[in-house]
């Protein structure tokens, strides 16, 4: 009891005293994109339980005025909720201490509309982070900005990405001590993928580390880099023909996590470019990989490639969740990742060595992951490339078994991981393309079809120690929402046909649902309000790939009226665009 009070006091002090990390799970705030450094999206709040969740009801809504896909999640710091919209990246600050939650301020940066066309997949933003009295987030046109959390005044803005080379920024930054970590999207535009650290106080770029190419650019330093399964120098150079790495992709558009004990920053890299695999023989390191770096100087410590020689657009930008698990009776500091390629991986986060790898959805491109060398055991008939023609029946589709935009959650109470999954497959026909700066560098046609069972999505509970599904709730449409799980043993998510759902974290039983006005591609959060009650917030606002695949879900342009997607003809019956912030409570 005394410890709890002390912890609360420390938390209050740290909020005013500029600490950037705290046991947020205990304070009832939500100050980082994924709740905590371990990216668990777990909250210790427990007022809402499996027994009373049926009494949830909406208590407040707000239209953001923006129609792009509302990925990401709000922040709650003290008595204020912060919401970032898709382009034009408005930042709203709502006063949770007043009736109706009126705005304290809003910040409207001048974001270049040209960025919309340099984005592969809608004008999304995955959220802000809080540190040292600042709200820090990224603008689609390649800037990182810090805003005073109290006044909304702009403190600094730094151009980090080159829009003219197809670099945009959609990811949520993470602050580690005094470093703001950011990365760029552009795996469909032939970028030379990177991650950067900026000084939190000034916005100055402190280091830039590329994810592919020469060791010098990758910040591979002698004696520091120890990948678990390969050895030697220039691994990011020698796994590409010629200079193809220069436009090889490896974007960073997902989620960052950090282990303060090991002092390692973890993140996933995206697909290799172009989509024609024949153009880039070799493993193409370190695309479709997880990288572990020192935040101080960016040094690469280890890297593991989930999909060597990516031939299916299998980005690995999905979240890396850090959890201490018991595997075969032994405690392990683990890193758990649901890859687009259909396998869920449990790694030793000290070394990058794979402990468990098992499919969580239908997988046809590989039979298994060989734990002796970490490599997939491929089905050669599913290998793609310009010389292979149209390759049929590849599962998962290039949207991923889990969309990296939809981060999972982990409960230390149930020891289970919760995630939305997709159940559709693709044909894949690729061809050679030419690099033209600032234009797409792809070359693929990849029509989709429903996977086994006919349902297009699901929400699952996963045991990462053994690699098996514990329970599964099928969804009729693709599932694109992040997960939230709480100490009340309730898991929350949204669906692309517009339902907000609460389910029993132990059984998957549906406890509550509400139709929220647009399909959900954002991530629910929970917090303790100034009145002491527990709230759950999420965005409605279909978009990202979903608004492009289902072009008839859009009604905002009379000159662009599209037919339904052939693999999901019905979804526009249930949703149209529109960003709405929802708050629920008992």
């Amino acid at each position, binding site marked *: 009891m005394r410890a709890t009070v002390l912890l609360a006091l420390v938390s209050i002090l740290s909020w005013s005293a500029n600490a950037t990390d705290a046991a947020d799970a205990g304070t009832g705030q939500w100050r980082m994109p994924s709740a905590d450094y371990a990216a668990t999206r777990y909250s210790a709040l427990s007022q809402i339980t499996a027994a009373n969740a049926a009494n949830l009801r909406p208590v407040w809504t707000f239209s953001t005025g923006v129609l792009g896909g509302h990925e990401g999640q709000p922040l709650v710091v003290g008595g204020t909720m912060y919401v970032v919209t898709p382009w034009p990246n408005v930042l709203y600050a709502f006063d949770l201490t007043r009736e109706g939650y009126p705005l304290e301020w809003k910040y409207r940066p001048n974001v270049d509309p040209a960025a919309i066309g340099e984005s592969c*997949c809608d004008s999304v933003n995955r959220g802000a982070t809080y540190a040292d009295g600042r709200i820090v987030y990224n603008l689609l046109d390649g800037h990182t900005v810090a805003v005073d959390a109290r006044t909304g005044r702009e403190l600094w803005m730094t151009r980090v990405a080159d829009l003219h080379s197809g670099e945009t920024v959609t990811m949520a930054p993470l602050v580690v001590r005094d470093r703001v970590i950011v990365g760029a999207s552009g795996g469909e535009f032939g970028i030379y993928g990177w991650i950067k650290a900026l000084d939190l106080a000034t916005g100055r770029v402190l280091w830039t580390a590329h994810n592919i190419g020469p060791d010098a650019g990758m910040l591979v330093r002698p004696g520091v880099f120890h990948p678990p399964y390969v050895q030697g120098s220039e691994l990011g150079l020698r796994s590409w023909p010629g200079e193809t790495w220069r436009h090889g992709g490896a974007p960073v558009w997902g989620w960052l996590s950090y282990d303060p004990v090991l002092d390692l920053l973890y993140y996933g890299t995206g697909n290799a470019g172009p989509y024609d695999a024949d153009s880039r023989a070799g493993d193409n390191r370190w695309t479709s990989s997880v990288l572990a770096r020192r935040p101080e100087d960016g040094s690469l410590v280890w890297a593991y490639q989930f999909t060597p020689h990516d031939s299916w657009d299998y980005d690995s930008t999905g979240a890396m969740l850090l959890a201490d698990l018991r595997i075969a009776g032994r405690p392990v500091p683990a890193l758990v990742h649901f890859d687009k390629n259909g396998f869920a991986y449990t790694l030793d986060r000290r070394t990058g060595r794979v402990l468990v790898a098992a499919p969580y959805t239908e997988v046809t491109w590989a039979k298994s992951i060989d734990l002796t060398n970490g490599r997939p055991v491929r089905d050669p008939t599913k290998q793609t490339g310009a010389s292979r023609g149209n390759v049929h029946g590849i599962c998962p589709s290039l949207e991923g078994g889990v969309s990296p935009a939809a981060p999972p959650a982990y409960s230390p109470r149930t020891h289970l991981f919760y995630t939305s999954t997709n159940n559709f497959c693709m044909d894949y026909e690729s061809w050679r393309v030419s690099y033209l700066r600032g234009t797409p560098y792809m070359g693929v*046609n990849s029509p989709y079809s429903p996977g086994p069972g006919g349902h297009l999505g699901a929400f699952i509970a996963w045991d990462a120690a053994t690699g098996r599904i514990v329970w599964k709730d099928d969804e009729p449409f693709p599932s694109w929402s992040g997960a939230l799980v709480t100490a009340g043993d309730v898991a929350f998510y949204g669906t692309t046909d517009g339902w907000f759902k609460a389910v029993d974290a132990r059984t998957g039983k549906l406890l509550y649902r509400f139709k929220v006005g647009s399909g959900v591609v954002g991530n629910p959060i929970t917090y303790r309000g100034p009145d002491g009650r527990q709230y759950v917030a999420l965005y409605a606002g279909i978009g990202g790939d979903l608004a492009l695949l289902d072009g008839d879900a859009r009604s905002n*342009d009379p*000159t662009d009226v599209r037919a339904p997607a052939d693999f999901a003809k019905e979804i526009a019956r249930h949703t149209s665009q529109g960003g709405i912030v929802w708050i629920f409570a008992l």
Partner: protein
Amino acid sequence: MRNETRGRPRTASGRVRAGITTLLSIAAATGITASRAAPDTHTRTHLSAAGRPAPGLPGATRVNPFNGDPRIATAGAKLFTSMNCDGCHGEDAAGWVGPDLGDGRWRFGGSDTDVFDSIFFGRPKGMPAFGGVLGERGVWVLVTYLRSLKAPADQPTESWPGH
């Protein structure tokens, strides 16, 4: 980034996987001389005071030298792929992050002149200016392809059977 086939009848002969080499051979076949001049980039819809556009600027009336030539339309389909237009506008220009260009509806007007200006000078929200890399004749090849797409009957109503 994902293309989704939606089955518009192809009006150009099958898809071509064209690299720069092919592009250059198309250029030779159609008499295109690639202009390397920096593109004149305009990123706003161009209004003209008193309805009188400045000569030579977007909005001036232009005449397509290849008007309706099916051979040029076929070359334009290849160019549409080799210039990565399909990466944004989708296979057969059926739309992706960029709008559908074959549905008979046009954001910036569907005349030869309007479509030429969209490609040559670019448009807001991310349509790059291709005039600098393609030159006037290359842009006209693309215009000829896009104008050859047979727009389906305009269907403002979408309904679901058994509703």
